[in-house]
């Protein structure tokens, strides 16, 4: 599965953002300032790994199928009843970026209803707490309860929120860790392109199982 390499990513940033900006003196000044601030925060936080936006899914294996209790009753999971792309969104109600993202995800879901599914997986929380949260922040996509984190562990999810887009064959094609702006047109284009590219270039079924 193709991933954007770090040099390729830096090249794109420089070509489209940095070089035009450097044409002004203010640009140079602000760039120096941002490099300094970035260096300071990197020194302090050491290891922040969140990227904001989709990258090609880093998995070289097929995701594990699962069934979980749904907040509204019954059970849901993978595979879906119909062959559709699906976003699996891992979140928790205690996680501030997760809370901020749910509203945007709901709008995205409504805009793509019938073409793409969303399954939100609540990580490590009891039904009552998740229910209270969705009373305040209503959503129409299915919310599944991974109370013992078994699915979260099986999928090697280490950051909340994390969103993974699976194509119709349930192969991971894009992933985002950290808060994602679901209204951002670039993300929508990424999703469209990824699904098109994968449907053309990859006909094979998933065969390689997750190592866990």
């Amino acid at each position, binding site marked *: 599965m193709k991933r954007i390499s770090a040099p390729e990513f830096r090249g794109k940033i420089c070509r489209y953002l940095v070089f035009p900006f450097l044409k002004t003196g203010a640009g140079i000044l602000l760039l120096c300032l941002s490099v300094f601030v970035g260096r300071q925060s990197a020194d302090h*936080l050491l*290891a*922040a790994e*969140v990227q904001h936006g989709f990258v090609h899914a880093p998995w070289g294996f097929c995701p594990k199928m699962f069934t979980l209790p749904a907040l509204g009753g019954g059970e849901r999971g993978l595979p879906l009843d119909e062959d559709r792309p699906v976003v699996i969104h891992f979140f*928790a109600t205690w*996680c501030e970026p997760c809370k901020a993202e749910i509203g945007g995800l709901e709008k995205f879901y409504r805009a793509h209803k019938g073409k793409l599914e969303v399954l939100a997986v609540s990580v490590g929380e*009891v039904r*009552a*707490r998740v229910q209270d949260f969705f009373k305040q922040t209503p959503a129409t996509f299915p919310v599944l309860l991974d109370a013992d984190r078994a699915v979260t562990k099986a999928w090697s999810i*280490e950051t909340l929120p994390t969103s993974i887009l699976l194509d119709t064959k349930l192969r991971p094609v894009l992933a985002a860790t950290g808060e994602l702006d679901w209204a951002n047109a670039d993300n929508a284009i990424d999703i469209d392109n990824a699904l098109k590219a994968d449907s053309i270039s990859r006909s094979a079924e998933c065969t390689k199982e997750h190592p866990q």
Partner: protein
Amino acid sequence: MSLSRRDVLKAGAAASVVAAIPILPVRAEFAPQAGKWRKFELSTRLNIENASGLTQAWIPLPAFSEPTWIKPEGSSWRTNARSATIVKDPKYGAEFLHVVWKKGESAPAIELISKVSAQDRAVDLTKQRGMQKLSDSDHKLYLAPTDLIPTDGIVKETADKITVGATSDTDKARAIYEWVVENCHRDAKTRGCGIGDIASLLKSGNLGGKCADINALFVGLARAAGLPARDLYGLRVAPSAFGYKSLGAKNEVVTKAQHCRAEVFLTEFGWVPMDPADVRKVMLEEPPGNLSLTNEKVVEARKTLFGAWEGNWLAYNAAHDVVLPGAIGPKVGFLMYPQAEVAGERIDCLNADTFKYVITARELAV
């Protein structure tokens, strides 16, 4: 000696000036010292509303025992339950009361009374005590990862970067403590004491939370650096004797006064108390609030809470990933709040509207 009228007037004026100077409360130096045991009685009253089907509860008992600073003195209870049994977690020895009401009991209730003695702790880090030994089983237990405290991946990478150049256990612990104090922050919006999912915390780059997050991060980093460490989950039961409003119970009702502390085992000193989370609490909450790292109260708390803490707090246990016998729901990351299930559904232990319990603490004469 005779006094002239002028001398008398002068003296009177001086006395008036002295009387007019407002007397500022003098805060005692934050220097907890062992030597004075205090005894507390805890009462936990739990009432479950709208019960149906089978109702069960699991209530932590203040059973952590360490003869130098905390001595549990037993618990008793009154309840309309079918059974109430003290259960000991097989891995960590955490004790809790498992209460089961008969099906259809409409108003499940229990009042649990526990007594505990505690005193201040302070380890003199200038005087090494010779080689301290931890049993093999405890050494293994307190270096091991838990569900929410992994010791590999980003935790190990972070611990390695923090402790680079540190050679002794104490130097490593000091480096981790200072890093946690400087890089974490207390987030008032965090529910309860936080979750303690430290890999997620580090990966997110937002090191905000409360004691169960911040002190769990300290413990995880210490374990990843090869230092046995543990979280102690407990409760504040009395105001601070050192003038810190943020570091004590405000009154006898301590329902929301849960607090988790940490210990690290240093070969030079044995178990040493640590509380970096409380340094950040002082910064956020100590009047007038939002104090800087250079504020006098913060500097003092930061210095003291590496090696000492006040005996106005009691420990329930040092357990993680606690399996609740008979429960339908999952194990809990830590057991500091009462837990309950009604008709197979776990109640949200942090939702006061649906899970009503009151914990009070009072000091008894010794």
